[in-house]
């Protein structure tokens, strides 16, 4: 299962503490959520694009990982163009739908925003080992070990769910109910195994919890075998995050497009 031990290509970004990457991504996202305008989103996106160079993602990995974004962004934009708040010159009217200067600008801003906010998150996931992220959450951010490690151990079960699901589907075919019945049959074939999967996974989860408890988990203060520390590189990462956010806002204000959502 590659979910928990992803093959991460060594790169400057992959070496950083996951917490600094998380921090930078959050700073940029928050800044972009403060306004809806195309200039700030475009500037942030362009600066993020430059940073991608140090992430060590191959072209294939990059397009594969970000594929959902490239679909979501245009759709979000198009929806806004068609149904968003209208202002300025009317460009097109079809029934309920009016396309105006304002809604086009808004749609563009939304599409760019989805990309600019989504990209750092995806890069974070693609260059981070879940175990390292858990170490950072527990040791740097001091979140309770019980939740962090419980979650991490639970993540391992996801791989098993996939395996269970595969067997459940094969078993339905073997038992004569694997096809037919039209859309209702298809629906039934989905929910039948879903229940069995639930039973099987609850049982597996409780066994895992027993095994963890037997190894002394969740009692007293614990030590950490792996150190998760913040270094100079992490300060740079956070600085870059703040920088991208600051520059994006400054350029938008200078260009006069900044529109504070809370005002």
């Amino acid at each position, binding site marked *: *299962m590659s979910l*928990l*031990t992803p093959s991460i290509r060594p790169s400057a970004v992959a070496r950083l503490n996951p917490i600094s990457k998380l921090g930078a991504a959050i700073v940029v996202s928050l800044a972009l959520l403060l306004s809806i305008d195309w200039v700030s989103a475009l500037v942030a996106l362009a600066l993020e694009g430059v940073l991608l160079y140090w992430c060590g993602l191959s072209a294939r990995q990059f397009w594969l990982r970000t594929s959902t974004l490239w679909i979501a962004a245009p759709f979000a934009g198009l929806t806004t163009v068609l149904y968003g708040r209208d202002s300025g010159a009317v460009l097109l009217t079809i029934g309920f739908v009016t396309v105006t200067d304002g809604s086009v600008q808004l749609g563009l801003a939304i599409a760019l925003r989805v990309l600019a906010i989504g990209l750092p998150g995806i890069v974070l996931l693609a260059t981070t080992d*879940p*175990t390292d992220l858990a170490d950072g959450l527990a040791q740097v951010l001091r979140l309770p070990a019980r939740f962090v*490690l419980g979650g*991490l*151990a639970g993540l*391992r079960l996801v*791989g*098993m769910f*996939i395996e*269970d699901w595969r*067997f*459940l589907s*094969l*078993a*339905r*075919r*073997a*038992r*004569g*109910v*694997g*096809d*037919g019945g039209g859309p209702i049959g298809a629906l039934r074939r989905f929910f*039948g195994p879903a229940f*069995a999967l639930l*039973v*099987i996974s609850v049982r*597996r989860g409780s*066994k*895992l919890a*027993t*095994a*963890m*408890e*037997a*190894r*002394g*988990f*969740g*009692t*007293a*203060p*614990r*030590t*950490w*075998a*792996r*150190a998760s520390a913040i270094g100079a590189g992490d300060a740079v990462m956070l600085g870059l995050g703040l920088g991208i956010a600051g520059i994006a806002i400054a350029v938008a204000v200078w260009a006069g497009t900044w529109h504070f959502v809370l005002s």
Partner: protein
Amino acid sequence: MPLDPDSVRPVAGAHVRARGWGWRHAGRGAPAVSGLDLDIRPGERVLLLGASGAGKSTLVHALAGVLGSEDEGDETGELLVDGRRPADARGRVGLVLQDPDSQVVLARVGDDVAFGCENLAVPRDEIWRRVGAALDSVGLRLPLDHPTSALSGGQKQRLALAGVLAMRPGLLLLDEPTANLDPEGVIEVRDAVRRTLDASGATLIVIEHRVAVWQDLVDRVIVLDAAGGILADGPTGTVLQSEGERLAAAGVWVPHLPPRLPGRLPSRLPADLGLQAGGAQTPDLLLSASGLAVGRVPFARRTARVVAGGIDLTIGAGTATAITGPNGAGKSTLALTLAGLLAPAGGRLAASPGLAGGLGTEPVRWRSRALLTRIGTVFQDPEHQFLSGSVRAELAVGPHALGLAPAEQVRRVDELLERLRLDHLAEANPFTLSGGEKRRLSVATVLASRPRVLVLDEPTFGQDSRTWRELVALLVEVQSAGTALVFVTHDELLVDTIADSEYRLAGGRAGSAAGSAAGARR
């Protein structure tokens, strides 16, 4: 394997003491264990036996301090490890459970072993020293960042053992640690336990119904009485001699008392009669594979990863074919392919016109319902194939899908319920049955639609000697009625008892990308 004497330092073995101890699980009428009086001296090695339901696991879980709090059950009497309650003796006691998959906590080998030490607040430098030593002592010489998901069952159990050893327990508890392993894995784990006990001097309590695995390692056998207290307690040889018959009847695999099969065994056919590669044109031929390659399509991929190839095999009516080989050789994948559930990754699998009955020759292209009367499959984990809320409804799934008349459905279901002694459970939920009952039901559900080929994946896994005997008797009966049996197994006794021929897949261990699949026939 020589151990670094400093690495697994002798620990003082723990002392176990029970006085009138008992435990009743919340919501149950009868206690799981009651009236237990017991003393186990430091360094003793104890095999814990008893019929299923005698409370072996309950005792071991209690000693590990994981039985739960007061609202999960009622405790009576006193149970102490080194004079302390088990919950206060965490770290003195290490527990390894049966299921290899649900004991791995972390994603990398080194981290997983370190987990227990972290919880005991061992300093970081010391943790990594212990991790290295523990992995050495169980013979698991892998890089520390090796993914735990790539380990075989035996390796996972040794990993769990290493994780426990790194905590330096004075009492090692093993709850059927080898029940789910292939013979190779069983030996790996047993030998690792022996080495580490020799080095550490810890006390051992092991539950296992296959006595032969542990009898030379333990020096004392304790038999729990399902009615409460202890049935027998003493040196290994003495107890097995005096209690052997009673234990065997209760399902324990006693080495000098192998399970007896009811009735007559079919006379064994000469090894390859009617089954040799050249004899593919026998009239009762059902399935034939030539140059078959099998593999599975990994998640989110389009092409299959081949695990075994170059397979030539024929299945005739009334024959029993065993598929054997090490873990990861592709046995289950081959079985699922023969069963028409997975598409061949290469080569050809053809059903004879007699079996296909007007359909095409490729079983994987048949509709789900068409498989029912042709090829039935019993999965390794019975829970994967249960679809209904009651045993009766479960048995009716096949006959119903076939569109049989309601009267005929009821007749078939009633007949199976009675024959497999499941009639008293007809309204029970399949998920609540015991291991042996689940296995019987999973075979019965397939028999209900009367397939001409029956494919079984590890049918005897984890069965005690009583349920084993029942299952084998059933398979012999099915076979003599003309059904072809194909079964994947590690169980040599099963192969010796019912197989006409054995097809051995000689793959690499689990974790290697692809096994070379030179098949060999016996």
